[in-house]
């Protein structure tokens, strides 16, 4: 019996990289049986999205299929005409993109966009399609399924939009759905909800799926089989449970090991207070809404305070207040025992030197037209007055500290990888010899292993230089890895704060409990177990957290 519906064999896809054709998928094979979920996992550049899109017979602009075959229910897609492919796409194979916000047309209502594909493919008339859409919205647990379709994309939340897109993908009862990182852009508590409805509906419909992600814990919840990819090569393939329990390849083991908790740092009894934010309330000019409400935090010398919260929790605003970019409405900021002026322009050079910042996107935090030597050299010259030989020597020292070769001095940022760029940002911050570095989501734009390297570097630097970190993040795994103290924020307020062990050990505040329980675990049964516990009311769901505390 042959129940294989998709068979990709020895597929080679090349991409045009600065005028040269280079392979990005190197002879990969993949088979998909009816109702099976295959997880494709890897870091950026692994070729996982390219392989996923190939299931639709599609390549991105600037890519070409060189050899191999893609058989969908026994029919070759590579040689199929464009009109034949159009029949297949959205009909028997459909696609769910990472950013639902970018994939929806903002000018049309959700239900209109839903009905387009079933009507165009001649599967049903518009009225039936609307009924079908509402039915799917109900299955995907969207609120008010009868009416939500009349809204425009900007009128629903990110998680709801992602579910609406999943509904669209299911509109024509496809045989295969390709999910391309559907939950990556979502908050951790929202991710769980989307993940569980995707899992349930895929299971209920018996549809086969290709699930692309960089997060092993996420794919562990859904996939029957996992393919680990790297640089377009297959590293390892196997049954999900077996692969997670006994990874054979070193690379898979490294991906798995990142999540393990690092040991508690011993308390060295250093109680010197560095930064003291007292009762800060802040709002953006021209709005009446307080983004921060009565926020107080303390940072001790040589320690790391992690501020954790989802989007809209005000954690980045807190950084803007501390740096002086957004003067608070009330409250004050004490630094080393004296009050910091509220406004950036009123602060002295010495104030500015002692607080440095590292950003989420190293791409836009480095001026593309400046060489590395100018980027790192400027704070040396500006704050410390270093010139000529002295400056060059110090730049070399800094490059050594961030574990990059000295030859990088003459490069431009575009010639560096994402992780290397983030290291340069760290060096630029260190060049000022600061007491406090504010790290705003510094690892969230990076691949898992690269991010791990950055966290390790920050840890080592703290051990040798005794610099304090204010670590802003939405990623609880990062928090567990590096923090001494944790501040949990929600809608501009502090829910709770304390040492790492205090926060991470029960009893938790309800929101903290929700947040902690939402971190995916490697255990394939974790999601099902969590949902059972949530339904029984044992642990809170996002609906049980009040809108305004």
């Amino acid at each position, binding site marked *: 019996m042959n129940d294989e519906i998709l068979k990709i064999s020895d597929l080679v896809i090349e991409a*045009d990289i600065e005028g040269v054709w280079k392979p990005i998928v190197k002879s990969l094979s993949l088979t998909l049986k009816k109702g099976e979920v295959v997880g494709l996992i890897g870091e950026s550049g692994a070729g996982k999205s390219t392989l996923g899109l190939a299931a639709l017979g599609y390549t991105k*602009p*600037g890519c*070409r299929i060189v050899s191999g075959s893609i058989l969908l229910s026994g029919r070759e897609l590579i040689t199929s005409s464009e009109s034949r492919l159009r029949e297949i796409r959205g009909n028997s194979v459909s696609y769910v993109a990472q950013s639902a916000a970018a994939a929806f047309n903002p000018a049309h209502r959700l239900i209109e966009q839903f009905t387009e594909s079933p009507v165009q493919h001649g599967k049903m008339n518009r009225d039936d399609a609307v009924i079908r859409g509402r039915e799917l919205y109900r299955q995907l647990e969207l609120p008010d399924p009868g009416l939500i379709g009349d809204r425009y994309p900007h009128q629903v939340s990110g998680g709801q939009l992602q579910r609406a897109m999943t509904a669209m993908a299911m509109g024509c009862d496809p045989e295969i759905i390709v999910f391309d990182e559907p939950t990556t852009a979502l908050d951790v508590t929202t991710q769980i909800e989307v993940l569980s409805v995707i899992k349930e509906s895929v299971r209920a419909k018996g549809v086969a799926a290709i699930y692309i992600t960089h997060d092993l814990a996420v794919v562990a919840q859904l996939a029957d089989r996992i393919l680990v990819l790297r640089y377009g090569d297959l590293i390892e393939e196997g049954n999900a449970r077996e692969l997670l329990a006994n990874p054979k390849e070193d690379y898979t083991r490294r991906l798995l090991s990142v999540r393990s908790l690092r040991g508690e740092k011993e308390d060295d009894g250093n109680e010197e207070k560095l930064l003291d934010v007292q009762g800060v309330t802040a709002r953006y000019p021209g709005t009446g809404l307080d983004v921060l409400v009565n926020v107080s935090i303390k940072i001790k010398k040589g320690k790391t305070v992690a501020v954790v919260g989802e989007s809209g929790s005000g954690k980045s605003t807190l950084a803007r207040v501390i*740096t*002086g*970019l957004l003067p608070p409405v009330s409250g004050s900021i004490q630094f080393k025992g004296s009050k910091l002026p509220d406004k*950036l322009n009123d*602060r002295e*050079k010495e104030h*500015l030197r002692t607080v*440095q*910042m590292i*950003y989420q*996107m190293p791409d*836009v*935090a*480095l*001026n*593309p*037209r*400046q060489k590395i030597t100018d980027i790192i050299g*400027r*704070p040396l010259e*500006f*704050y410390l007055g270093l010139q000529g030989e002295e400056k060059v020597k110090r730049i070399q020292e800094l490059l050594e500290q961030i574990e990059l070769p000295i030859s990088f001095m003459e490069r431009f940022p575009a010639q560096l990888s994402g992780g290397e760029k983030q290291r340069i940002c760290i060096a*630029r911050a260190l060049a*000022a010899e600061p007491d406090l570095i504010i790290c705003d989501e510094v690892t969230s734009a990076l691949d898992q292993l690269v991010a791990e390297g950055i966290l390790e570097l920050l840890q080592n630097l703290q051990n040798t230089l005794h610099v304090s970190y204010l670590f802003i993040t939405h990623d609880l795994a990062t928090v567990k890895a590096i923090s001494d103290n944790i501040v949990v924020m929600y809608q501009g307020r502090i829910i709770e704060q304390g040492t790492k062990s205090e926060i991470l050990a029960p009893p938790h505040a309800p929101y903290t409990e929700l947040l902690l329980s939402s971190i995916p675990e490697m255990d394939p049964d974790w999601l099902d177990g969590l949902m059972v516990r949530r339904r029984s009311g044992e642990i809170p769901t996002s609906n049980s957290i009040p809108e305004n505390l």
Partner: protein
Amino acid sequence: MSWFKLFLTIPWSARIGVLLILFFSFCAVFAPWLAPYGESEVVGDVWEPIGGNYVFGTDQIGRDLLSRLIFGARNTISLALFTTACAFLFGSILGLIAATMRGIVDQVLSRIVDIIISIPTLIFALIMLSAVGTAIPSLITIISIIYAMPVYRIARAVAMDIEVMEYVEVARLRGEGLWWIMRREILPNALTPLAAEFGIRFCFVFLLISGLSFLGLGLQPPLADWGAMVQENGAGIAWGFYHPLIPASCIALLTIGINLMVDHIVHKASGLRDEH
């Protein structure tokens, strides 16, 4: 050598543009050596035929048209180039200041620019030129004021986009002054779009000067100017002479050449990829 290699990598349309620009620039630079006769030297009969004793014939008072064209290239191009450069210096500095400082400075500058821009270009130029006279310095000043306005708007828009980048925030947090942020952080990243704009504006300035000369308000005789040459020879059209079309096609060719090159720069700067 590397310039030659670069030339080979650009598309054919841009190559034509580059060749046209190089050709006219060459004529402009070496005019006295290239021109067979003097700029205002009367050498023959009125409107001698094209392709006879003189390559492009003679003009309405018997001067060699080819020589006039070569000297005209020198006069018109250098005047347009200098004027455009002035407009850019003036417009982009103000634009960068407005984008970096924002608030009241931006508002005041932008509203002044709006007012000047709302007056039709040609009418504004005509009024100012009749008021202050048609000396070359006043011609340059007036045209560069007119064209500094659109440059201001472009520079401000481009700089606004760059100003929100985190590296600019880093510089602000470092405590850098306005001048540093403008010159070192924003300007280098705004150069490509401004360079493309320079090419387009140069065309407009060039056409405006030709237009003004045609109306008798630009370069004054006996200086050769392509626009003025169209006007001087204009009457010939009625007698079946093609002479006015020759300077007119020079204007067209140079404008097309610049546009072809600018299109390529804009295409590259916008990061568009060619579909395979």
